[in-house]
């Protein structure tokens, strides 16, 4: 059996759904962040699969930029989580609703 583009796309869809489900289920902000990373990786996989299938390097360039943005996002997001958890240890995503004032 030959591996077609569809196989990679189906794997990406499964990874994306698992990440999205985890984002909705978990309440620890750190784990929610990891689920966002899972979803980003799923999209990266589909970018590379489409790019290879169409013979287009643009797919890989897009993944490159997604990686940079993911790194920036993690840095700022983790700094926010550190700032929140330092003031309220053990805070979950629900506790951050106190920010609405």
């Amino acid at each position, binding site marked *: 059996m030959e591996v077609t583009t569809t196989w*990679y796309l189906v794997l990406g869809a499964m990874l994306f759904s698992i990440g999205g489900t985890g984002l909705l289920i978990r309440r620890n902000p750190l784990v929610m962040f*990891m689920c966002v990373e899972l979803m980003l990786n799923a999209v990266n996989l589909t970018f590379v699969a489409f790019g290879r299938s169409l013979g287009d390097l643009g797919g890989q360039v897009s993944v490159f930029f997604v990686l940079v943005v993911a790194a920036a996002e993690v840095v700022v997001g983790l700094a926010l989580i550190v700032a929140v958890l330092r003031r309220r240890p053990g805070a979950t995503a629900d506790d951050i609703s106190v920010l609405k004032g």
Partner: protein
Amino acid sequence: METVVFLICAAIVLAGAVGVIAFRNPVHNALSLVGTLFGVAVLFVAQEAHLLAAVQVIVYAGAIVILFLFVIMLLGVDRAESLRDEPLPFQRPLAILAGAATLGLLLVVLLWNDDPVTGAPALTAGFGDKPNVEALARVLFSDYVFAFEITALLLTIAVVGAVVLAKKPTPGSDLEAEDEAAREVKG
């Protein structure tokens, strides 16, 4: 050969992803995430994206997961989260339903036709016969050079933002007064 590689990596990727959302200890979640990221990196190699595979291992598995682990150790959030208490009733069943619906819709779109790839082959940014790194570098530093420079700016801003956010409030500042007020309310 590629079939074997794909199946093994797909199993690793999916097992790691399930581990990320199922384990209750954040350290175990982070280690599962490493498994998923390595699996995706091998799948990149299988699709001849060699530079991205290396970057994936260095940036994701090397930097981002280590950052997660640093924060976990720094904050001491090694307490296992209880997956039982639910502030919102029915949230978890609904979340699983939403995930299943997303997967179902995506699979319908992907498997409805024989070939889901409906774009036109590239005319300008083709793979050519150059090695992957060289071809990618040429595209990155010609067509996408402005976007590339802007990412440098983005990373600088992110670093400055992280330092500002994670800084302890200086004595006598408004932030410290707010901290004290928050502590009194809690205590």
